[in-house]
């Protein structure tokens, strides 16, 4: 039988051992890669709720007042008015083209309502030679850079003057001149491509960056993950601009992700990130400008998450009243619209007033209408266009097939609506 003294000695010995194990003799542990992490002997998980929510950067209040004058970007009145006109002309064009789809005059359309400041604010912060990769809801970037009303409309009509001569659906714009890569319908595919272009720019040492727009929905795609990871490891000067507009068709953002939005993922990839008020043109501008400077001068990617709201339906194939109340939309838009916020600022600043507004509304409606009428008359390109640009040259098998098509057309000439097309 063990005596009390022996038991006590055993106990003290055991406690001594336990005390020694409460602290590691090491301070930090250099683990694979560049993780130099402190050691801990506390079993403790990181819970998302314990992380602070990333704040939203804002310069202009919804009533148009500047919160902090030192944050106001230095724009001339002309530049301010230009940006306002870009946003409003886009909106006016959206209204007409949306209606024209309803009337069967174009086959499809996507509006940009509510997101105009994300386009124009960011575009204004870029060098015109910075390459833009978009998703499909960034027409304001093109508007800012000088894409003409006719250019938008021709593409929507798919006529022979369109950038892609009718090969793609409406709103799939592209412009080599304006450094805007042609839109494709697949989501997030542009993201790793933007990284590749940025890497090529880094090697070319041309002091340019690449900006890549995408929605919060697209950020769920595998390509988004690949892009963010590649941009960080390869140190590419690319700006990732997420338009978080609350919806991916009918899927709300709460169903799209469970974490703190998209900006919170930045640090996980080793990428600097910021969240901005997407309906505040100045906030978008300031953040994009600062991000661009970082990207170009420090050769690193930057992630910007612009919080905004998709006021319109996803597209003309969508009726969002099926999944959100019309009231919700109306209230959101009334409470906070990027265009009216900016107009209020302009009025306070003194470079805009009701008279100018009335005049501009008339002028913009007129020019949109004129452009539409003009472009609707332009014919579609010759059907031979089908065989162009599959490869750089028309390969022999395609020449054979074109010949077959021509023979078929000869035999069945009257089956085709020739008045709409340029002759073969």
């Amino acid at each position, binding site marked *: 039988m063990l005596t009390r003294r022996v038991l006590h000695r055993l106990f003290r010995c055991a406690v001594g051992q336990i005390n020694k194990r409460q602290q590691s003799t090491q301070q930090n542990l250099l683990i694979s890669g560049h993780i130099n992490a402190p050691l801990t002997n506390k079993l403790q998980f990181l819970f998302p709720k314990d992380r602070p929510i990333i704040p939203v950067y804002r310069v202009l209040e919804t009533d148009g007042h500047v919160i902090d004058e030192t944050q106001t970007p230095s724009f001339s009145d002309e530049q301010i008015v230009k940006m306002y006109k870009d946003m409003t002309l886009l909106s006016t064009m959206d209204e007409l083209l949306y209606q024209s789809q309803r009337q069967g005059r174009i086959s499809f359309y996507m509006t940009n309502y509510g997101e105009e400041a994300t386009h124009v604010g960011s575009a204004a912060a870029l060098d015109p030679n910075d*390459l833009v*990769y978009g998703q499909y809801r960034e027409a304001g970037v093109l508007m800012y850079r000088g894409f003409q009303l006719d250019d938008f409309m021709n593409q929507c009509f798919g006529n022979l003057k*369109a*950038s*892609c*001569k009718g*090969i*793609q659906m409406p709103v*799939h714009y*592209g*412009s*080599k001149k304006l450094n805007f*890569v*042609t839109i*494709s319908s*697949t989501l997030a*595919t542009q*993201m*790793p*491509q*933007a*990284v*590749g*272009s*940025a*890497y*090529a*720019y*880094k*090697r*070319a040492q041309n002091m340019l960056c*690449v900006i890549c727009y995408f929605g919060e929905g697209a950020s769920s795609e*595998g*390509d988004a*993950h*690949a*892009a963010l*990871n*590649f941009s960080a*490891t*390869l140190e590419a000067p690319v700006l990732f601009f997420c338009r978080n507009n609350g919806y991916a068709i009918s899927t709300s953002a709460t169903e799209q992700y469970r974490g703190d939005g998209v900006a919170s993922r930045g640090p996980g990839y080793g990428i600097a990130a910021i969240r901005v008020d997407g309906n505040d043109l100045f906030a978008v501008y300031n953040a994009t400008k600062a991000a661009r400077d970082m990207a170009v001068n420090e050769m690193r990617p930057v992630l910007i998450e612009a919080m905004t709201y998709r006021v319109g339906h996803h597209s003309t194939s969508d009726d969002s009243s099926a999944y959100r109340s019309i009231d919700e939309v109306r209230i959101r838009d009334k409470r906070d619209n990027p265009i009216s916020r900016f107009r209020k600022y302009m009025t306070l600043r003194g470079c805009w007033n009701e008279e100018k507004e009335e005049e501009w509304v008339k002028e913009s409606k007129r020019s949109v209408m004129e452009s539409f009428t003009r472009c609707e008359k332009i014919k579609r390109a010759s059907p031979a266009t089908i065989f*162009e*640009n*599959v*490869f*750089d040259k028309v*390969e*022999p*098998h395609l020449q054979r097939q074109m010949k077959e098509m021509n023979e078929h057309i000869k035999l069945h000439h009257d089956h085709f609506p020739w008045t709409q097309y340029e002759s073969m």
Partner: protein
Amino acid sequence: MNLCQAVQNSIDLTLANDHTSIAFGEDVAFGGVFRCTVDLRQKYGADRVFNTPLSEQGIVGFGIGCAVAGATAIAEIQFADYIFPAYDQIVNEASKYRYRSGNLFDCGRLTIRAPWGAVGHGGLYHSQSPEAQFLHTPGIKVVIPRGAIQAKGLLLSCIKDDNPCIFFEPKILYRSAKENVPIKDYTIPLSKAEVLTEGTDITMVTWGTQVHVLHEVVQMAAKENISCELIDLRTIVPWDVDTVCKSVVKTGKLLISHEAPITGGVGAEIAATVMKECFLNLEAPIERICGYDVHPIPHTYETFYIPSKWKCFDGVKRLMAY
């Protein structure tokens, strides 16, 4: 040089002569799992020969973007079996870039290369020959060499071609048979099949490793006084219809062979086209000697799966006996 060295040499020449060119992929920096990029990083620098994170969709998407911005991009996919995460980028993006933009943008400077085909012990995921999955995609070129000399010329053509190209490298041939590969920069035209042996009785069409199998079959057939015309297709798409048809007009009999499963394989496309173009010249139904419609290739059963010289020779005999 062997095929692996020929590939390395092609990339070396490209990096030397085209200052925009870069080579990248998983494990490319240390020389590659098949050593096709060995020594290149030391020679040309870490910004031009580098590892990417482990993501095929990222590798190809990144490569497309490089090409769009004017850089020559040589992207390595570690095994053709792993090209599928990049399938969307290849089919929906790379192949359509020029078409959908009305020639405003293109990624012609992109070349994707991947080890391909049976290697003896590759199992289901290190043996695939997926060329048929890309045959059906307009806008890309797919090229497969049969040896070192061909590999260098064809790869350099792919790199210089102004369309996105996929170059599949028969991994089983990487280190076998050295050939006298010219040191200089040379190209071999794409979309041009090569008649390797001339013959009058049977036309045989194949590519890659299978060319060597059919060479043996040609010799076996010659012993029985059957004269075979062996054609290496080289470019799978767009393929050289004229050379193949010209041969079938002469012989009246066609045998196509490939490792990939028979249904929907490239052989099906060739057979259908030849049937249409040469219907009245055909003296027998077209033979396709291919893998079975099981997943290529079940590990311990490779000898049973592959379209061996015996299976091909049986096909020859069926053609002659028809």
